């Protein structure tokens, strides 16, 4: 493997890993804020206990999100310096906005929320977690705007003298039609993970500790599963819109998602294929007539361009070379994204049905407690692998090939060092974090029932909720 491959593997590993924590953070902080609001408004103790319990799990998770995010901020410069030189004028702006508008907000108010339970008036303390929610949403928006610019560059011109892209319209970058559909898709997908996490944890408690805090966890199960269902509808609708936008801006990605080699009108949706996916022969496949035309264009008889004709068109436009992404990878990650996402929604629906009107969940259902949140998390991962590898061979679509972005002066020894180092460190931390999460989940609601003091003490005690 050369430096380019190593740098790509490193970016993939660190970014996929970082994104295990992102959807959980985005959704769990909002759910926790919702629970705390419910407690503030109703005064019911169960909401306070759930706030503290899921808040603790949220904090364990966000710690990992924050530290792995540090790597994200600097690795463009480390491994992708020529990319940074080419795009910094445009791409740097949303990143800087993310820091200025989102990261300061999140980090400051999370400190106030953790340590402010008995130091701040209740309404101010509640406001703090909502500020964290706002911070996570803004952060998601700006970083997705940056990514969407790589998918569909807008609001810029290429300065041939400096050999770089230059920003001409920040508003155009922030209202890129790709980010307008990617943001809701990502946020709904995050809520599928968070809702499933809340429901999965509650399910485990209801089955394994049926005599402890039954009513509280029943509420949590219903809240979590309902969130999954609503979010999955949002994911489907926004995903459909996103597919149409993507067909327009990156038809090759969507053709690759279907392994559609020849242009079809109307086109069928391939649900499943056994074969080589190299366009030569198909051993077995299940196809739904007209569906692909509808998904891609909104019309049942719309024309969908195939990989071969797009390859010809791109050669005319950009010169000789292959413009095909890794077809089996895009084909299968696209299917897995949709498949496992739908599976988790089905589980959530079943859980709501099977626990209706006070019914206790069957004991064997406990085996679904872990898969329930892991399925939508995997769907998030598949979705990102699909959209990022589906853009290849481009780093910035139509502008900068991936091979041109890598740091020219960085040695493969350096990249191997950081690749192995980060991977090993992330592996160890995954074990530490998972153990701590499971331990805290098993601990249940113990210690969450003390209502916070309103009166601050003089001077401060060491902080009880953390540290």
């Amino acid at each position, binding site marked *: 493997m050369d430096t380019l491959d190593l740098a790509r593997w490193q970016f993939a590993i660190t970014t996929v890993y970082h994104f295990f924590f992102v959807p959980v953070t985005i959704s769990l902080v909002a759910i926790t804020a919702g629970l705390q609001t419910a407690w503030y408004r109703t005064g019911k103790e169960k909401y306070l206990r759930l706030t503290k319990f899921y808040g603790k799990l949220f904090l*364990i998770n966000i*710690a990992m999100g*924050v*530290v*792995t*995010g*540090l*790597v994200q*901020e*600097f690795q463009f*410069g*480390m491994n992708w*310096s020529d990319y*940074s*030189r080419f795009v*910094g*004028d*445009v791409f*740097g*702006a949303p*990143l*800087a*906005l993310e*820091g*200025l508008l989102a990261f*300061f*907000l999140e*980090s*400051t*108010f*999370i*400190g*106030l929320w*953790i*340590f*402010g339970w008995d*130091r701040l008036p209740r309404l101010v303390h509640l406001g703090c977690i909502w500020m964290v929610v706002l911070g996570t949403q803004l952060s998601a928006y700006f970083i997705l705007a940056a990514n969407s610019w790589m998918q569909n560059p807008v609001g810029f011109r290429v*300065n041939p003298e400096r050999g*770089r892209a*230059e*920003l001409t319209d920040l508003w155009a970058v922030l209202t890129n039609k790709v980010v307008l559909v990617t943001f809701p898709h990502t946020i709904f997908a995050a809520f599928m993970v968070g809702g499933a996490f809340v429901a999965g944890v509650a399910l485990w408690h209801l089955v394994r500790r049926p005599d402890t805090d039954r009513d509280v966890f029943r509420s949590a199960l219903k809240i979590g599963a309902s969130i999954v269902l609503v979010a999955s509808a949002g994911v489907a609708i926004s995903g459909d819109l996103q597919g149409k936008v993507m067909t327009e801006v990156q038809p090759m990605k969507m053709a690759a998602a279907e392994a559609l080699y020849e242009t079809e009108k109307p086109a069928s949706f391939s649900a499943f294929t056994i074969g080589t996916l190299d366009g030569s022969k198909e051993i077995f496949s299940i196809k739904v007539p007209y569906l692909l035309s509808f998904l891609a264009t909104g019309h049942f008889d719309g024309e969908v361009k195939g990989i071969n004709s797009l390859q010809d068109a791109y050669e005319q436009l950009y010169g000789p070379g292959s413009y095909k992404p890794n077809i089996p990878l895009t084909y299968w990650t696209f299917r897995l994204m949709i498949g496992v996402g739908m599976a988790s929604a089905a589980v959530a629906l079943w859980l709501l049905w099977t626990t209706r009107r006070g019914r206790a969940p069957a004991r064997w259902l406990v085996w679904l407690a872990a898969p329930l949140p892991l399925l939508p998390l995997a769907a998030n991962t598949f979705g990102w692998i699909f959209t990022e590898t589906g853009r290849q061979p481009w780093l910035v679509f139509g502008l900068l090939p991936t091979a041109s972005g890598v*740091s020219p*002066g*960085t040695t493969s020894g*350096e990249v191997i060092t*950081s690749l192995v*180092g980060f991977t090993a*460190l992330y592996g160890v*931390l995954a074990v*530490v974090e998972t153990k*701590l999460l499971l*331990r805290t989940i098993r601990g249940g609601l113990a210690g969450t029932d003390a209502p916070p003091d309103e009166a601050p003490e*003089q*001077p*401060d*005690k*060491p*902080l009880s909720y*953390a*540290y």
Partner: protein
Amino acid sequence: MELTTVWFVAIATLWTGYFVLEGFDFGVGMLYRVLGRNEPERRAAISTIGPVWDGNEVWLIMAGAATFAAFPEWYATLFSGFYLPLFAILVGLILRGVALEYRGKRDEPVWRARMDAMIVTGSILPALLWGVAFGNIVRGVPLDASHEYVGGLGTLLNPFALLGGLTFVAVFVTHGAIFLALRTTGDLRVRANRLATRTGAVAAVLMIAFLAWAQALRGDTVSVVVTVAAVVAFAGGLVANLVRREGWAFVGTTLAIGLAVVSLFVALFPDVMPSTLDPGSTLTIVDAASSAYTLKVMTIITAIFMPLVLLYQGWTYWVFRKRVVVA
């Protein structure tokens, strides 16, 4: 003022803010294990930075992102050139961040000992390596005509830069000890106060040597004046600490770190990465800068939102202003 100069000042301000703020929480991270003689004391010590360390670290992220947006060439050359030290800094910050959050989550001595090791390592290593990195930025590194770093790891580990690293560690230890003396009570406070005097003497010597050497390498009248002011502020802080005026002592070390970082940036201006190979290969603010439009919109947005950030970060310090007792 030219917008390129405005953004040079902005980035200098962000690094200054980062080292002033994270400086004391690095210091506390290096010290709480030895200063706290038992678990309640250690918990109290670490609680002083609990609500604020994460917000302090955002100053670093902001410095990185602002450099990316305003000076892409600087961002690209610096972080690809200083690859391995930056990697080690990131590993240190990851270990520290996780351990700070996880330390109190399990009430077991073995768990805490592991987290303590991560916090101490993760506080010393980045402090040391940021000193090495800034020493090298000021000293200059081998850059070729396309501003690409052509040295190795050994190039970065020169005596001047290593002195910079030791200076950062010693100054942050002192800054952290004074912060602890300011924010705790009883024995812990007394011990922190005494330790600050002892480490302060060492830090003062290192600081004078490093800053004087930096000025000898590339200083002008203004940067020399700022350097002298930094040393005077540090001395003033140590005197205040000696007479147990901890608030003033903290003001002293805060000013000293701020002015010292400013003196390095003043000496650097208008270069951002001097080349030791050929003056023509030096990266300047003009070579590195983004387009006028990008700098303009970023200036407007920053002018609107940065005051807001300062306001709520300041409020956090106000909310957690009381001393932490050992309990």
